[in-house]
């Protein structure tokens, strides 16, 4: 690539927000180049290995902020390669949330009902499957039994996993070696490539400027494929339309760094960040009590001891996803697996003396790791995250050659957020400690702040220019031709895993981007089938596309 490269559309990032428009726009006839800062890994490169430098650290990023740390994907396919593929749709009440602004924060045109056809498109395209009790892992089954024992319901979660191929290795965070996880590497991205889209891995976008003819020039660095701290080159590419989909932890940073060249950014760029209200609790299961009280046992005679077996989250409790409850008192409680390394350091000894995250007592609970059950709390936070000044490159000062960095995000949880966390913690304790079945403690927020695997809302859609960076069609306010289609565009916490909603919003954004390209003289059409050729989902949105994003 040289300094004068030119294309119709540059897409920054190849997760859901990048891959979905890449496919549709390429299929519609546009010239599309995707710049992805992470490596392009093949299935055979996905390893079961915690060694630094294995796919686990190559494909993942962990950015420590001030009060909030963010885990995200860093590879072609983005979060879809490293995530756990739970794909519930957001409950109705989420779209009516007021959050911190005192009035509805979603655009008036968006409700669960109006998003439903776009959810259907994603569901057809990945595809998403429902699960039954034969699919859920021991950990999911145990969580269901615990919920049932305390008078609650529990649901096997819908997932983008081919359960017939899944070997329950619980190495999903390092990429799926068996192509069982339906990451974007298995659907939208190969279809985009087949239609001529170009994907440039290890291209980290620095900033965007506007050039004389109204087009945009995107400046990037090329980073070393092993040591992401090292730069091996740089360049630019010009485009009529730029789509930024670098993830909620990086998209606003690119725009902040571009402000000098592009002009003033909307106030909400880099503000209103949400960690999806996330929090983790770790329970230590009393195996014998579970046998006595719940009557559970495995074929090999063990009761549980299966923390390491499975496929991320398989079962969730949704009893508090009740729209009649006040805001900040609604949440889901989902069984989750968290790998060691990052997944044990923050776990605290239940009922122990301080310090509870390190020391001799902590070592004793590490020895019971196979009897851990991790519960993931997704609550309603207050969009209180704010990004400070951008680092010189990327979205963090990289510490390690891969994965670990220090970023400019500041998050100071409000009383509303703390209230939601404390209610969800108490509910977890009530379920898990009933009849002595387990001991549970929340992860500490004192070491790396709160912790999210689902960063959202740092450049969000909305009706109000003061509190949203994007028009409801995902176009950046006052900067026509720049769109944001990733997790940053989601207005706030969803109380469930957000990938399905991020993907549905990206699908919904495409007709508006097609219109923007056509207005700039690009001969592109909308209406591609699902990546595998299915047209069921296309039929459903055919009429909607005429109004979406208008």
């Amino acid at each position, binding site marked *: 690539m040289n300094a004068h490269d030119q294309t119709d559309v540059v897409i920054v990032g190849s997760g859901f927000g990048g891959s979905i428009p890449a496919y549709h726009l390429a299929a519609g006839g546009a010239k599309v180049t995707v710049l992805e800062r992470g490596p392009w890994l093949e299935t055979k490169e996905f390893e*079961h290995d915690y060694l630094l430098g294995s796919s686990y650290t190559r494909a993942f990023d962990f950015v420590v902020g001030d009060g909030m740390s963010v885990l995200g994907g860093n590879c072609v396919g983005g979060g879809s390669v490293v995530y756990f593929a739970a794909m519930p*749709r957001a*409950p109705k009440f989420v779209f009516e949330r007021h959050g911190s602004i005192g009035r509805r924060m979603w655009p008036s045109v968006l409700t669960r009902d109006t998003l439903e056809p776009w959810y259907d498109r994603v569901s057809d395209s990945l595809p998403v499957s429902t699960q039954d009790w034969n699919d859920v892992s021991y950990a999911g089954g145990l969580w269901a039994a615990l919920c049932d024992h305390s008078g609650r319901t529990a649901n096997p979660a819908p997932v983008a996993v081919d359960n017939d191929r899944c070997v329950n290795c619980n190495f999903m965070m390092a990429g799926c070696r068996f192509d069982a996880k339906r990451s974007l590497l298995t659907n939208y991205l190969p279809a985009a490539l087949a239609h001529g889209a170009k994907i440039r891995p290890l291209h980290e976008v620095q900033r965007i400027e506007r050039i004389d003819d109204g087009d945009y020039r995107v400046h990037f660095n090329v980073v070393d494929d092993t040591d992401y701290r090292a730069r091996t080159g740089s360049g630019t590419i010009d485009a009529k339309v730029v789509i930024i989909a670098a993830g909620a932890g990086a998209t606003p940073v690119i725009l902040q760094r571009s402000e000098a060249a592009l002009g003033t950014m909307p106030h909400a760029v880099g503000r209103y960040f949400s960690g999806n209200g996330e929090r983790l609790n770790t329970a230590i299961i009393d195996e014998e009590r579970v046998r006595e009280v719940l009557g559970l046992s495995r074929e090999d005679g063990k009761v549980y001891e299966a923390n390491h077996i499975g496929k991320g989250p398989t079962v969730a409790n*949704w009893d508090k996803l009740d729209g009649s409850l006040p805001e900040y008192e609604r949440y889901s409680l989902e069984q989750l697996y968290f790998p060691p390394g990052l997944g044990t350091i923050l776990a605290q000894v239940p009922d122990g003396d301080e310090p509870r995250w*390190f020391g001799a007592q902590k070592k004793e609970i*590490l020895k019971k790791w196979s009897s851990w059950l991790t519960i993931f709390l997704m609550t309603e936070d207050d969009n209180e995250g704010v990004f400070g000044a951008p680092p010189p490159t990327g979205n963090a000062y990289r510490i390690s050659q891969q994965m670990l960095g220090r970023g400019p995000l500041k998050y100071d949880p409000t009383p509303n957020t703390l209230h939601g966390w404390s209610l969800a913690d108490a509910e977890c304790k009530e379920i898990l400690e009933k009849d002595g079945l387990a001991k549970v403690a929340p992860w500490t927020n004192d070491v790396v702040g709160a912790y999210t695997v689902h960063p959202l809302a740092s450049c969000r859609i909305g009706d109000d220019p003061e509190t949203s960076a994007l028009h409801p069609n995902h176009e950046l306010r006052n900067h026509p031709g720049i769109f944001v289609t990733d997790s940053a565009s989601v207005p706030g916490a969803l109380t469930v895993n957000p990938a399905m909603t991020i993907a549905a919003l990206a699908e919904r954004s495409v007709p508006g981007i097609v219109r923007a390209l056509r207005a700039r003289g690009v001969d592109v059409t909308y209406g591609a089938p699902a990546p595998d050729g299915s047209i069921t989902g296309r039929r459903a949105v055919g009429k909607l596309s005429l109004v979406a994003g208008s």
Partner: protein
Amino acid sequence: MDSDEQVKVSTLEAYADTIVPGEKRFPGDHAIAGASPGPGAVVAGALELLHTEATGVTVGLPYLAQALNEHAKIYAKERDLELDKGSPPFVALSFVDRTALVRSLTAPGHPEKDGWVSLALFCNMSFDSAAHKHTAEAIAEGHPGLLAMGYTAPDEDGLWRFPKFSYRRELARLHPDTTPSGSPA
């Protein structure tokens, strides 16, 4: 007093041993306080991991060891503790005092918190994931942390598969408002 390198190593070992403590390797082992039975982070390879360039903390280790000993001297002075001059100051602290000092260094608001948290993170990783070794090799070699956590060997090709993974029973009622897509309403 030992050479600079020995001071650095034993100071960092004492830090690692504070994060995941273990039993003494030999009589007169000062770096390891002996606060927990069985091997801890030091025997699990904490120093090897910290000296792995990929962590990004390796070049800072001499500074961190020196700073830790300075903090230990101040800690001891504030409490009128007499430290054994034959060991680096942090090593000379009791396990309880090492723990109290590490708590304060990693607490919210401490100006050097980032560095001490990074050090703790990698010490913990040496025990719980042996990030300085291929996982399958570490298990085959009997890595004490992975074994303590209950890891079993992978299949011959180095991959884990669990054909038995489910109780295969209905274990709860579904939420009554579940939609046909399997989502909440």
